[in-house]
């Protein structure tokens, strides 16, 4: 009798368990297959040529960091020499003071002040089938829109991932990376902007922000955050300020 009563119970347990297992294994199989496919795409084409080129790129990036550090050191020495005369009333002091102001205006001096920090990164949403992956990553266009909105909102100095923006700066998409000045940047992108007053409020009302990038943030769930800060520190631009083609017009320094 006991066994006769227990048998139907075991059958019910097994049926439920088997159904659950089937569903779970089906889901596991689907995910594993999808993962295997994407891994296959990524690993199949990692060739020895890619390895070699990647090593060269890393070496060049390390060299760039070294060159920038050396250049920053020389710039600091120059600034120190020029600042040494600023306290006196000589012609040299006046020129060096103007030089310091010009470097400040041009983004060639590290600055501090109130402003906003924006962080933007690729969407965390799983790419829907048939969708363009480029929609879900931060593009150079997005950064240009954000920068345009910040400048027009009254920013006085901007840096992206530590790269200070100056008159010759471009923000350029190169494959999956973004080139700013001489540096290849990858997400998350951190934009720091120094500006007076309610920079964040003016930024949020800017058509350059609302027109395209804000819509992409909403549509594709790009990660986006903005906070105000009472004290930001932005580095100076470290790079070439030499002019090869442009010649200052005589008398313009007066």
């Amino acid at each position: 009798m006991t066994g006769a009563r227990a048998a139907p119970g075991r059958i019910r347990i097994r049926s439920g368990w088997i159904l659950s297992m089937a569903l779970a294994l089906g889901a596991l199989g689907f995910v594993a297959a999808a993962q295997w496919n994407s891994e296959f795409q990524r690993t199949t084409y990692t060739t020895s040529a890619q390895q070699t080129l990647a090593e060269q790129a890393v070496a060049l990036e390390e060299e760039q960091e070294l060159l920038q550090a050396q250049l920053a050191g020389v710039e600091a020495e120059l600034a120190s020499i020029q600042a040494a005369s600023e306290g006196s009333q000589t012609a040299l002091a006046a020129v060096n003071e103007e030089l310091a102001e010009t470097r400040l205006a041009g983004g060639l001096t590290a600055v501090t002040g109130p402003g906003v920090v924006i962080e933007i990164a690729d969407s965390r949403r799983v790419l829907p089938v048939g969708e363009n992956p480029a929609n879900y990553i931060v593009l150079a266009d997005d950064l240009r829109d954000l920068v345009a909105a910040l400048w027009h909102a009254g920013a006085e100095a901007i840096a992206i991932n530590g790269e200070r923006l100056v008159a010759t700066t471009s923000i350029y998409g190169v494959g999956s990376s973004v080139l700013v000045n001489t540096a290849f940047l990858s997400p998350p992108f951190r934009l720091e902007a120094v500006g007076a007053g309610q920079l964040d409020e003016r930024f949020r009302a800017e058509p350059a922000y609302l027109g395209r990038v804000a819509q992409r943030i909403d549509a594709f769930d790009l990660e986006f955050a903005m906070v105000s800060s009472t004290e930001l520190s932005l580095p100076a631009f470290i790079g070439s300020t030499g002019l090869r083609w442009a010649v200052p017009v005589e008398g313009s320094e007066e």
Partner: protein
Amino acid sequence: MSTPLARFSLALIAFVIGLALVAQFRSQARPTELTSLPVAELSTRIQTLSDANGQLRTALAEQRSLLAEYQAAGAQGSSALDVSREELRRIRAYSGLAPVEGQGIILRVSGALDAIAVNDLVNELRNAGAEALAVDETRLTARSVVVEGARTLEIDGAPIGRTFTLGAIGDPDGLVAALQRPGGIVAQLEQFVSATITITQTDTLRLPATEADLVPEAATPVE
């Protein structure tokens, strides 16, 4: 099969699914390791980095030379004054605070371009190595952006008409090549907004100084 064992099995499978989902989710993101980039992109990256490092080496040599000039002058004599004046002249020109002249190109642009299109054009020229730029008579600085004004596009408060000129000082051949590459900015603007863009190389382009006040109010130099 006991019920606790079934629950344990399901929990284990759910855990594995979770791990797989995380891995799958990560695989949707852009490649973050250099080795996962295509060969063509890696080659472009290497070329760009090589060029950039060359510019940095030149800049470093120039600044070291400037430093040597200061040290030779003792930082107080008339020679130091000359060095500082020359440096001021160069930095003013670089920042857009002084007029400049030189070889370059002039773009005459016509059409219904929006602010994004003009900003993209400027960005392309900067990326191609333009050292100084002006839209009509407005010299561009780091802060200059084209915006949609009440009636027309504007840059630094100045209106931009449906037809405008964009002057760029730099290597004329390099600038033209960047603009006119297949699928490049000029081709895109001509195709998508029916813009008409003519490019002229010139040996004598003169661009004015900016009229904008670049002296910051909120940003102060780090001591």
